[in-house]
C-alpha cells in the first residue's frame, strides 16, 4: 500500500494554478525527490503536504489517513525549511528538543535522546552553542535533527543543501543518504539540482509548470525520459526531428531527415506514438562518437573536462550544434556515428 498518496491536487494563489492536478504515490521508507526548475511549484506542493497551504481541490493521504484539512501541528510530517528556520533565541539543544515538549520526558531521558540525535547528525558537543554561532553546514544539521527528533512518518526537505557550497553539498548528500538509511524514515526532497536528485533518490518526480511530467527511478529517467522537457532537464541531450514510419514487432522505422532512415527498438519509443506521427529522436552526447564514416561535421567549440571532453559539432542542414562527449577527436572535419539502439523517440509536444 502507498504511504503518501496525493490525488489530483491543485492550488492557485489567485492567478493560474501553481500546482496543477498533481497525483503522486510515495512508498514507505522511500527516498523520493521532487525535481523541477525554479518557480515550478515544488515548495507549494511540499507546503500542502506539511499543511501550511490548503489545496483548492484534491486530497492528500498519509499512511491511510486523510490529511487534506488537518492543520500542520497535527500532521505526522516534519519539514526542513529552505531557510532552516532555526529558532534564534534558543541554543542548539533547545532547538532540537523543541518538538518534544508534549512527551514530558524526565530531564535525563530528554538529554539522552537529544545527545543521541546530536551524534546522528555529527554535532556532538555543540548543544550549548547559540543559533548565531553555527556555520551553514551546522545549521543544516540542526534543522535536520530538530525535524527527525519527532520521528515523523515523512520528512519533507525543501532544497536542504541549496545554501551550501559545492564541496559541503556533496559531503552532505552522502550523509543525508546515510542518515535516511539509518532512521528508515520516508524522505521527500525538493530540489532543482538534477544531479542531487539522481544521486540521492530511489525515485524522482520531474515537475514542470505545476504538472508532474514523469515519475521514475534515476536510471530510467535518464535513459527513458517520456517527453522533451524531462529529457532536456535531466542532463544534456540532442534532438532530431523525424517521422515514425512503422512499428513492426520489436523494431520501429523512422525517417530522420539528414540522418536517413533508421531502425530502432520499439521499446525506445514513448508510449502512444503511432506510425505517421511527427516525433523527436533524442540521443545523449556520450552515445554519439567520432568515427571514420557517418555524418560530416566540424567542431565549433570544445570544453576540456579531464578524461572526457565536450564538443559542439556543426553539421550541414541543422542550426543547433550536435553535443558530443568523448575522447580527443581526429584533426579536421569529423564524422559522427551512433548506434540506433541509443535513440529515444518522443512526442513533439506535451
Amino acid at each position: 500500500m502507498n504511504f503518501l498518496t496525493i490525488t489530483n491536487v491543485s492550488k492557485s494563489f489567485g492567478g493560474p494554478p501553481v500546482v496543477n492536478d498533481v497525483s503522486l504515490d510515495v512508498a514507505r521508507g522511500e527516498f523520493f525527490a521532487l525535481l523541477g526548475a525554479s518557480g515550478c511549484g515544488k515548495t507549494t506542493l511540499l507546503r500542502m503536504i506539511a499543511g501550511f497551504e490548503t489545496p483548492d481541490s484534491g486530497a492528500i493521504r498519509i499512511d491511510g489517513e486523510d490529511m487534506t484539512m488537518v492543520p500542520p501541528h497535527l500532521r505526522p510530517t516534519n519539514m526542513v525549511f529552505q531557510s532552516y528556520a532555526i529558532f534564534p533565541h534558543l541554543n542548539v539543544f533547545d532547538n532540537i528538543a523543541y518538538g518534544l515538549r508534549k512527551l514530558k520526558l524526565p530531564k535525563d531521558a530528554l538529554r539522552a535522546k537529544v545527545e543521541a540525535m546530536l551524534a546522528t547528525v555529527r554535532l556532538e558537543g555543540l548543544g550549548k552553542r547559540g543559533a548565531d554561532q553555527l556555520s551553514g553546514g551546522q545549521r543544516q544539521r540542526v534543522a535536520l535533527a530538530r525535524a527527525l527528533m519527532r520521528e515523523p512518518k515523512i520528512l519533507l526537505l525543501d532544497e536542504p543543501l541549496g545554501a551550501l557550497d559545492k564541496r559541503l553539498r556533496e559531503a552532505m548528500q552522502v550523509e543525508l543518504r546515510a542518515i535516511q538509511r539509518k532512521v528508515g524514515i520516508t524522505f521527500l526532497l525538493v530540489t532543482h539540482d538534477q544531479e542531487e536528485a539522481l544521486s540521492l533518490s530511489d525515485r524522482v518526480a520531474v515537475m514542470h509548470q505545476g504538472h508532474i511530467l514523469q515519475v521514475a527511478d534515476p536510471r530510467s529517467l535518464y535513459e527513458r525520459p517520456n517527453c522533451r522537457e524531462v529529457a532536456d532537464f535531466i542532463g544534456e541531450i540532442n534532438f532530431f526531428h523525424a517521422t515514425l514510419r512503422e512499428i513492426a514487432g520489436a523494431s520501429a522505422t523512422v525517417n530522420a531527415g539528414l540522418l536517413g532512415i533508421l531502425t530502432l527498438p520499439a521499446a525506445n519509443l514513448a508510449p502512444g506514438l503511432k506510425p505517421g506521427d511527427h516525433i523527436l529522436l533524442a540521443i545523449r552526447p556520450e552515445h554519439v562518437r567520432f568515427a571514420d564514416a557517418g555524418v560530416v561535421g566540424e567542431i565549433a567549440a570544445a570544453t576540456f573536462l579531464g578524461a572526457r571532453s565536450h564538443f559542439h559539432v556543426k553539421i550541414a542542414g541543422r542550426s543547433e550544434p550536435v553535443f558530443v562527449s568523448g575522447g580527443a577527436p581526429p584533426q579536421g572535419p569529423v564524422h559522427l556515428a551512433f548506434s540506433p539502439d541509443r535513440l529515444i523517440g518522443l512526442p513533439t509536444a506535451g
Partner: protein
Amino acid sequence: MKNKTLLLYAFAYLAFLYVPVLVLPVFSFNDSQFIAFPLSGFTTRWYAGLLADSALQHALGNSLKVGVVTALLSTLLGLTAARAVTRYRLRGTGAALGFISLPLFIPDIVLGLSLLMLLGAVGLPLSLAGVVLGHLLVCVPFALIVLIARFEGFDKNLEEASADLGEDGWMTFWRVTFPLMLPGIAASLLLTFITSFDEFLVAYFLSGTEATLPIYIWGQLRFPGRLPMVLALGAIILGASVALVVLAEYVRNLGVKKPMVGA
C-alpha cells in the same frame, strides 16, 4: 580650524538643549521662593513639600493609572495589528495603516476638542477612562511603528517551524513569537507610557475633575509660591524619564544582538 568651529557649534547646540533642562534640578535645591540668580543656599524642603501634598499624589496616581492602562492597551492593539499587517496579504492594508497613523498628524488640541464634543454628544461623563481613549488614539500609531519594524525583521518560517514541530497557535505565540518580539513589546510599552504620562491637551479636555499630573502642574503655576515645588517635581520626572529611556535602549539592544532570521 574647521574642526574647532564644528566643536564650538556642537557645544553650543548641547548647551541649547540641556541648559534649560538643568535649570530644573538646580533651582529645585535652591533655598528661595524666587527663581533667580544668584543661588541662595541648599535645601530639600521643596522635595519634602511634595511628600506632604496629597493633591499631587492623587494626580500622580491618576497619571500612572492612565499611563499603564494606555501602554498595555495600545501595545496589545499594536501587536495584533502589526502581526496582521506583516503576516497576511490583506486588501486595504495601506489605507488602514494610513488611517491608524492619522492622529499623529492631527493637532492634539483638535483631537481633544473633538473627543470632548463626541463624549458630550453620546452623553458619557468626563473621566479618566475618556483620557485613556484619547491617549489610545495618540499612542497606537507609535506602538504600531515600533512593532511593525520588529515583525518585519522576523522570518515567518520560524512560526511555521513551530507549528510543524507540533505546537498550536497559542503555544507558538508563547514559545516563538513573544520571546522574539519581547524587545519590541518592551520598547512599545515604554514609549506609549511616556507619551501618555506627559500628554496635556487631550487630558485637559477629557479628564473632568480628575487631574493628571501635567494638569496639576499647570494649575500650580498660578501660585508663584509653589513654583519651586513644581521644579522639584519636574526634576524627579526628568530623572525617571532618563532612566526609562536608558532602560528602553538597553532592552532594544538586547534584541539587536540576536539575529531575527533563522537562516
